[in-house]
Each structure stands twice: as structure tokens, then as C-alpha cells.
């Protein structure tokens, strides 16, 4: 997987990089950054991340502050009017991204970290252990991520901790599959045998020999999973599962203000475009990275 398939990738310089087979993450990033779509993605996602992180400091009103009668498009002293509850739409928009983003990043780190561990361990162990581990993870794949998260979160509580755990754990089998696929070719190579022959511990082989050789795939996978985690956590908020009741949250805002869409569209417009921009920007970065790593645009299953 880490071998750059120059035949399919007109944008990657064929030559030294593709012969070397081991490509180093910095060069993957730099190559991806040369692509227009990655640049656009970086700018769009960067702006949305900035809004999500720093928005709360810029908001003229509090997230739960009552500023006027509900659903008024041009209420006095507001930029985008009031929402279903008489709160300032602009302020709630500025407050509404942070929790989604932070939870998504935490869930991605958990899910991709564990998934990589399982995937690499399965590929390295081979045989029975590999088979058993992957079959066990496959069973989890029978449940769509939304369904599992929904059931678990509703049964316990939609606290940030539970959301991160469920979204993270449901990501694990999906990541493990990809990382196992990437590592399976690496474990067959001679330098792994050489490392074992000079007496390196299995753990060391796993982390210092195999892991660096699948880092490019890992980079793509992590970014892709972040996009999905943002989407999933926003979807769960849309269904009403947010860490705090009536917290400002882009997903929840769309749900709350949906019925007044024609009267006061801003309450739906702003969060919708925010989530769209964040996920699409991130998707563009993923696409740029995967074009460099896989050589072809990645036809990936939606699991």
C-alpha cells in the first residue's frame, strides 16, 4: 500500500520516491499540499476549526442568553436574528462548533489508535490469531455506527465521555481492517525477518518496523475518520443527544430551528453550512492525501 503506484498517479513525481517504496510522512504531506484541492480543503477546514475553537470568545451574547422574541429574522441588536427560543442565532452559531470538534478529535484518536493497534497486531500475528481477531471485529461491523452509538448513548447518557468512547470504539473495527490490509504486505518483507533475527522484541518490531511503514495509510485513515466522527457526532446531536441540555451545538440547532425554516432561515442555514464546510474541507484534505498515498482515488467502502 505504501508503494506509490506511479502509473495511476500523474500528479506524483515518478522516480526516486516510487522506487524507494518506503515513503516518509513529511513528503506525503508536502506532495498533498501541492494539490489545489488540498489547499482549498485546508483553508476551508482551517476557517471552520478557528470558528469552532475561538467563536465562543467572539460571541456577542451567551449561548443560552434570551435576547428577544423567538424566530425573528431581523431582531434588534442581533446579526442574524433570534432562534426558536429567543436566543441570538449568531452567538449560538459561534458557540456551537467547539464541543463537536473536540469530541470528534478525541474519538478519532481513540478509535484510530486502537484500530491501528489491532490491525497491525492481526497482520503481524498471522494465522489463527489474525483470523480470530478480525472475525470478532467483523461482527461489530454488522451494526451501523449510528445505531450502536445511538443505543449505547441513550442507555447511559450523552455525556462527552460516553460519546467519545462509543464513537471511538465503533471506529475501531473499520480502522483495523484498513490498517491490517496495509500491514499485511509489510510483514512479509525481508527487513521484518531481519529485525526478528537480530532479536528485536515483537513489540519493537510492531512499533518501530511495521508502524513507520504504514504511516502514510495511517495519516489518510486518521483524517478520513475525523471527517466521519464530526459527521457522526453532529448527527447524534441532531437526534438530540448532546452533552448538555439546550447547549449551543450545530447539529442540535438544525433540529431545533428546522420547523421555523421558512420564517427564520438563519437558525438552520448557519449551522448547516458550518458542518458542510468543516466536513467537506476535511474531505478535500483526505482526498489529496489519499491520492498521494494510494496513487488512485481511493474507492473506499462506506463502513
Amino acid at each position, binding site marked *: 500500500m505504501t508503494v506509490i503506484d506511479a502509473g*495511476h498517479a*500523474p500528479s506524483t513525481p515518478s522516480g526516486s520516491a516510487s522506487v524507494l517504496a518506503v515513503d516518509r510522512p513529511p513528503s506525503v504531506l508536502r506532495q498533498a499540499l501541492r494539490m489545489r*484541492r488540498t489547499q482549498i480543503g485546508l483553508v476551508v477546514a482551517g476557517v471552520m476549526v478557528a470558528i469552532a475553537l475561538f467563536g465562543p470568545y467572539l460571541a456577542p451574547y451567551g449561548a443560552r442568553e434570551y435576547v428577544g422574541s423567538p424566530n425573528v429574522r431581523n431582531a434588534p441588536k442581533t446579526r442574524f436574528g433570534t432562534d426558536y427560543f429567543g436566543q441570538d442565532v449568531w452567538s449560538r452559531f459561534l458557540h456551537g462548533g467547539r464541543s463537536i470538534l473536540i469530541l470528534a478529535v478525541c474519538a478519532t484518536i481513540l478509535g484510530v489508535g486502537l484500530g491501528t493497534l489491532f490491525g497491525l497486531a492481526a497482520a503481524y500475528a498471522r494465522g489463527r490469531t489474525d483470523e480470530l481477531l478480525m472475525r470478532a471485529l467483523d*461482527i461489530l*461491523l*454488522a*451494526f*451501523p*455506527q*449510528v*445505531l450502536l452509538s*445511538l*443505543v449505547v448513548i*441513550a*442507555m*447511559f447518557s450523552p455525556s462527552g465521555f460516553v460519546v467519545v468512547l462509543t464513537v471511538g470504539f465503533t471506529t475501531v473495527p473499520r480502522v483495523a481492517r484498513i490498517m491490517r490490509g496495509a500491514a499485511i504486505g509489510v510483514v512479509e518483507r525481508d527487513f521484518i525477518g531481519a529485525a526478528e533475527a537480530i532479536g528485536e522484541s515483537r513489540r519493537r518490531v510492531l512499533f518501530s518496523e511495521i508502524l513507520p511503514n504504514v504511516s502514510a495509510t495511517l495519516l489518510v485513515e486518521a483524517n478520513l475518520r475525523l*471527517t466521519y466522527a*464530526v*459527521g*457522526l457526532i*453532529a*448527527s447524534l446531536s*441532531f*437526534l438530540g443527544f448532546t452533552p448538555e441540555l439546550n447547549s449551543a451545538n450545530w*447539529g442540535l440547532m*438544525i433540529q431545533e430551528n*428546522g420547523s421555523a*425554516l*421558512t420564517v427564520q*432561515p438563519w437558525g*438552520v*442555514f448557519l449551522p*448547516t453550512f458550518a*458542518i*458542510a464546510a468543516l*466536513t*467537506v474541507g*476535511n*474531505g*478535500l484534505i*483526505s*482526498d489529496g492525501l489519499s491520492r498521494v498515498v494510494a496513487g*488512485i*482515488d*481511493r*474507492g*473506499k*467502502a*462506506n*463502513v
Partner: protein
Amino acid sequence: MRHTPILRFVAKRVLFGLLTLLVISVLIFGVTQALPSDPAAVMLGRDATPEAVAALRHDFGMDRSLPSQYTHWLGGVVSGDLGTSFSTRLPLSEYITPRVANSLFLLACAGLVSIPISLAIGAYAALKRDKGFDNASSLVLLVLAAMPEFVVGTLLVILLATFVFKVLPATTYLSPDQPPWADMKGLVLPVLTLVCAVTPYVARVMRASMVEVLESDYVEMARLKGMPERTVLLRHALPNSVGPVFQVIALNLAYLAGGVIIVERLFNFPGIGSALGEAVRSRDLPVVQFLALVIAAVYVLTNLLADVGTVLVTPRLRTRL
């Protein structure tokens, strides 16, 4: 006699599928039972007497041992007796079956629309590789793939039902006892949203598969023999590139089973999505268990069909049986 190996293969897959479902059913039952909070206590509310809770637990068989509850539940599901909903006290067959039918209909519509569209887009993009259509479609598909369903759905509502064009209703008007086709116009936006959610993935795999096939020796051979391009594409390239796509279609149909939960909520469609939300909130375990089993069964079934389909369309695999 020629067909026996295929039949044996199908039988083996069916058996494996049933085994997977059995494991899944144990898992569903175990997890839902292990969850905190006593459904009987939840049902009776805050000031229920312990005796009332105990009586209710007895009524629903919750005081029996877990293995006995499990076998009773599984036996019921197999024989068509799905049990009683905790919250509505209606038999599940009455309360939940129509909703399952509604959702399956929605799912089937989305599949029937999206599969041919995505195969066509993928194949055409492969033919026009790195030209206008390929670049444009890859960008559109990328954008659609990145956004969560409810955002795509909301954008569609803004575009087609409210602000830009006002041609479609923004919600479905369907009571649970009506057949799902009673409101075809209201079905358009939910189906379109689901189509947008899965088309990108299938189209991309189709494109990749077709690109590979177009570069293969046998396609070149066919061209060199002087076959018309049309025949080369329809007889040689297309059938061979569809094989690998089946698996992805299966995964995506199973993914849709989760997507309907969100989309049904957005468009107020009376299916399993809304039922599941309610059931989860009111700790209606029989409903949650049954719906989880249905969704898992969709996954197992689509995977089964994909495995069999792949073998049937791939001569190399077919002869190896």
C-alpha cells in the same frame, strides 16, 4: 450436475450467515440486558411500589434466568411471535412490523435508484479518465461523501422544498398504518438524501475497477481484434468490472440501514428510525432488540447476496468452485 458446486457454495454461505446472526443475537441480547436501569422500574415511573415492579417483571418474564429469557426470545423471533412492546403494550408484530416494512421500502427505493446511477457514473468517469466529466464528478462525489446525511438532507430541503425551488414537500405525510407508497411525492427527498449518501462510494469503486479493466490485456486484445468499441465495453469491460463492486454495494446498503435512522427523523418518515429513538428512550427492550436484529440481518443478507453475486459474475471464481 453442473450447478451443484454453486448450490453447495450458496448453502455454505447461508449457513455461515445464519451462524453470524446467531452470534449477533446473543450479543444484542447480552448487551441490552447488561445495560443499567430496570425497564420495569422505568415503565412504572418514579413512585412505583417494589411489589408492582416485581409483578411487572414477572409478567414480562424478566424474573427468569438470562439463558431461559434468551431462548424464549429467540424461539419467539423464529416462530414469528415477536413479543410485546414494553411501552405501548402492543404486540410487536402489530406495532413494529409496518414500520419495518416502511423502512425496508425506503431502503429498497434508495438502492434501486442509487445502484444503476452510481455504476453509470463510475463507468463513464473511467472512460473519460482525467477529463472534464471525471474531474467534475469526482469533486461532486467527494463533497457528497464528506457531509453527514442530515446536512445533505437539510440542503436538499433548502434547495428543493423551500427557498430555491418549491417543488417537493419537506416532510412525509404518512401514518404508520398506510402503505409507504401512499405518499410518493413525500418519499422523493428521503430517497434522494440516501442516494446522495451512498452513490459516491459505489461510483468511486466502480470507476477504479473499470479503470483497471480498461487497461487489462483482454480489453486491448478485443480492441486489436477490431471489435467495435461498443462491444468491447458492453461485452468485455463492463461485466468484468462489476464483480468487485458488489461487495461495496452490500456494505453500503447495510450502511443505509443506519442512515435511515437519521433521514427518517429529518423527514418525519414513520419507520424504524423514529421507533428506535422512542424505544431507546423508554427502555423498550423488546423493540430495541428486534430492530437491532433486523438491521444486523440486513447486513448479513446483503453480504450474502454480494458474495454469491460476485462469484456468479466472475468466471474465474465460478470455475474454481
